[in-house]
């Protein structure tokens, strides 16, 4: 039964080894997907390269279908899969800040590490910024703590929140993703024709 760690198939130390291997694989996939390049990533926000949207939605759909069907077959205990608590207001503000950083810097935290590992200077600068931000946040935490813990909603999932079945959510997300893929392809072609800019 999955998840393996929660069923104590291996201890914490071996868990770190597994995390390391998966992390290397994740970074490799990101790099091969072109996510070590800030130009490709930032292009998403100007809509002339929709690669980020396509990769993200593909990842979401793959993981979602995997979790859903594994649970249905009985390989995976969904109730053991970690779902973070929702603090709606601070998470919206945090998400907006992360998005702004993404547009300005051209990376999200994960892809900046990928970029730095391939030797890009902007990746290193971005990483420094991350650690500086972590330091400032840590130092300011007493001031921010009230907001940080405000509007707690506990563990919320879409089926619970919307009052619909898991299968319905899966269907809607798949439909949304396929729609987004089609729209992205269409949009890219249109913009490429108009501005003569390549799709990469």
């Amino acid at each position, binding site marked *: 039964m999955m998840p393996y760690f929660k069923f104590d198939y291996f201890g914490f130390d071996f868990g770190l080894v597994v995390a390391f291997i998966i992390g290397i694989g994740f970074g490799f996939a990101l790099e091969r997907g072109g996510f070590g390049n800030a130009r490709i990533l930032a292009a998403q926000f100007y809509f002339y390269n929709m690669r980020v949207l396509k990769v993200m939605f593909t990842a979401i759909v793959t993981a979602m*279908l995997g979790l859903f069907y594994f649970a249905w077959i009985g390989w995976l205990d969904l109730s053991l899969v970690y779902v973070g608590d929702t603090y709606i207001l601070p998470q919206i503000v945090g998400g907006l800040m992360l998005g702004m950083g993404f547009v300005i810097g051209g990376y999200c935290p994960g892809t900046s590490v990928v970029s730095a590992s391939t030797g890009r200077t902007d990746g290193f600068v971005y990483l420094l910024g991350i650690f500086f931000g972590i330091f400032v946040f840590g130092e300011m935490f007493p001031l921010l703590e009230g907001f940080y813990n405000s509007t707690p909603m506990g563990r919320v999932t879409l089926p619970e929140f919307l009052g619909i*079945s*898991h299968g319905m959510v899966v*269907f809607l*997300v798949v439909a949304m993703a396929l729609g987004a893929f089609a729209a992205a392809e269409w949009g890219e072609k249109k913009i490429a024709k108009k501005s003569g800019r390549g799709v990469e």
Partner: protein
Amino acid sequence: MKEWFMKLSISKKLAMVAALLGIIALFIANPTDDNKIYVNAKEMALSTVKDQDKIEVMTLADWLIKEKSDFTLVDLRNEKEYSEYNIPTSVNIKMEDLLGSGLMRNQKIILYGNDDIAAAQAWFVLRSSNYKGVYILSGGLNEWKNQILFPKLALNATPEQTAAFEKVKQISAYFGGTPQLATAEQTTTSAASTIKPAIPAMPKLSTPAVGGKATKKKKEGC
């Protein structure tokens, strides 16, 4: 039909697979029934017979004095009772909230109520939901009171028993208890010995009981 399918690009084929799986999911609705539980009856029965799932109050007292922190002590009684008195380091979780309370499946959990019954029921709920290290405080809070907070020394105690009682007195004092000593009047007059000593006051809580919920929650996620 087949030719048409072969002509499609790999990403279009994958998209069709995803669409198909999405539509099937619509009919499956819910992959697991959250209220259904699976029980390995033999394994559960065996651990009960072997008394592997019980912790004696003395053992717990010893752990608390040594400040062992590899377990979570869960108080299953209601809030009012909890705020009046609870065993140090315990957290108050209601029976119906047990599964959503953030207890970890690889954690050592010790349950207690006033007696064994609530703890045994909670033990079953947790064990059947794949919690591994679930234990019952044998005798519950009543036993904790009898043995730790208000231990009694029999009137005709042997020297060995008296010596052992001295140790218990120290443990009791650590938890703010009041050991029940056989007083002189009780021994001299037979009438007095039948009068039960007044129930001593419960020790005052040093830490505010309210808001003492799951203090250290293991952080997970990215």
